[in-house]
């Protein structure tokens, strides 16, 4: 049952992903992207990660999508004129190769093992959210702080490149 449900959601996720890149109107693309985000949230729930699912919906489907829609609105983007796609042959060849290699990996790969410290029991005992907090602020404290510098740099860069006069 769970497997069936997974395939169903996965199908929706892939289809919405396709719509994101093929849709003519940017608004349609954005809405399809919201759909993809929701499907990802469902995956998180299925992986017993409810906190991640909630964050996924709040941050990605909520905040980030609103920003994207705002940008679309402010830039007043219209429907993209129909252009004949180029390099379709290369894309097809590349896509087929990637597909074949992925099939090979899935066949030969051993994905059913669990490695690492965090098992299902640990999650049940300590709680999912507490574990994320511990990972973020104890084990991954330095990367967390570096990420703040990263955001600072990105903000400064965006201002420099976008401001009318520096």
């Amino acid at each position, binding site marked *: 049952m769970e497997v069936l449900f997974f395939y169903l959601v996965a199908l929706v996720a892939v289809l919405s992903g396709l719509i994101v890149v093929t849709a003519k109107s940017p608004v349609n693309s954005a809405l399809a992207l919201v759909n993809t985000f929701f499907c990802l949230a469902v995956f998180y729930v299925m992986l017993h990660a409810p906190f991640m699912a909630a964050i996924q919906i709040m941050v990605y489907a909520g905040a980030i999508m609103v920003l994207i829609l705002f940008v679309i609105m402010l830039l007043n983007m219209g429907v993209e004129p129909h252009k004949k796609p180029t390099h379709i042959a290369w894309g097809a060849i590349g896509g087929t190769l990637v597909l074949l290699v992925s099939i*090979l*990996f899935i066949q*030969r*790969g*051993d*994905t059913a093992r*669990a*490695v*690492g*410290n965090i098992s299902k029991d640990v999650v049940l005992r300590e709680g999912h959210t507490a574990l994320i*907090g*511990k990972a973020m*602020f*104890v*084990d*991954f*404290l*330095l*990367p967390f702080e*570096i*990420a703040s*510098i*990263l955001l*600072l*740099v*990105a903000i*400064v*860069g965006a*201002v*420099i*490149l976008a401001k009318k006069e*520096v």
Partner: protein
Amino acid sequence: MENLVQMALQNVNMAAIMPSLVLCCFGMFLLMINVFMPRGKTTAASLISLLGLAVTFVVTLRAWNHPELGFAGHVALDNFATFFNVIFLIAAFLTVLMSDDYLHREGYPVGEFYPLVLFTTAGAMWMASGTDLMTVFLGLEVLSISLYVLAGLFRGQLRSNEAGLKYFLLGAFSTGFLLYGTALLYGVAGTTNIADIGFYLSAHGKMLQNPMTIAGMLLLAVGFLFKIAVVPFHMWTPDVYQGAPTPVTAFMSAGPKAAAFAALVRILILGLGGLQADWSSLLWMLAVLTMFIGNVTAIYQTDIKRMLAYSSIAHAGYALVGLVAANAVGISGILFYMLAYTFMNIGAFAVLVLAGKQGEDNLTLEGFSGFGYKRPFLGVAMSIFLFALMGIPPTAGFAGKFYIFAGAINAGYIWLAILGVLNSAISLYYYLRVMVYMYFREPQEDYGWVRMNPGTVVSIVLAIVGVLYLGVVPGKIMEMAKMALF
């Protein structure tokens, strides 16, 4: 709850991140200062950033032979990291020295240039000292995002816009590869710590041939090889190097390249040492391709910046030879070579900074006709840097290539060494051609008055000293490079 705070504090070891911490403090201080500075006055900012780099240099040197670990195995300020940190600081210092006058000449005196250079350097430091794939990845991102901005800094110039955008799009793409590789290796070993991945793989030998491990290694390698500009991930290099502001190009060709090498060496040797047979045969082919394509394409360039871009691709190929050898001489050869390359390449770009006129349309071979007589000092300096890039004794380039190829021969890669030397011979053609234009052609036009900006001249002189010192007495630095191995 208090328990968690204690656990978090236990892991903190400020000494392990001191150099990057000092740089970030100076960077943030500069950002604040810039707000109060009148528009277009950037000299103070450049001086403060020079001070910051000098302070960091002292802090970094104190860490030599005093390795520090910290942050739950996320960072290791060992000799390896310190050696690379010194390279980044030298690259940043020389770059800042030549930038102030250049930014004014080109009409973009942007004060935020300097903090961004400092943050880039800090990002490079996290790449070199990071012992966890996450730290390395975030360091790479800090470095890359600052560089995207710096490359596109001249907003009114189409070439600079193109450089920034191209670098950003392709860089973001390659970051995706890197992150995917990290995720796969995490799936294999259950950890992102580089050494722990190595332990896991040596304990579970059959995981080595698992496609997931190999795919993870390949994707990680693609991410770093892109930054190093190895064929076939080099397509962005000529356009970005040509379009970016010249001091940024100078920095980009030395600092980030060394940083990506540092991360790649640490990950491949410590984490994926069990797969050496796989990655060394792959890198063998890439090194040969990179050397040939870089050198042969450079022959056809008439724009000097573009020529140096292709030459930098070729030099990435030489350095890669050391990684293929993967023995003590080869790896310490990479360290030495990166230091030598920093001096000679940044020096060459510093000469271009002074030789260029606004817009830099005169930086072609034709534009260099008779340059050596009109500008004797710059001509001699350029000749020294070109000799070093060729690899002619007694310059740093010769010593660097010597160590790298010696490492390859020791490891039994005799053909690789022969192909490398052959490539150096090819490269003679296009480096010497610049000198032929400088000394054996009549000047095409009047050069006008070149402003010998003191900062840039100091930068050139420092680079000459570095090139000659490393070339004449390479032994001491090479000993240090050997001590830097883990």
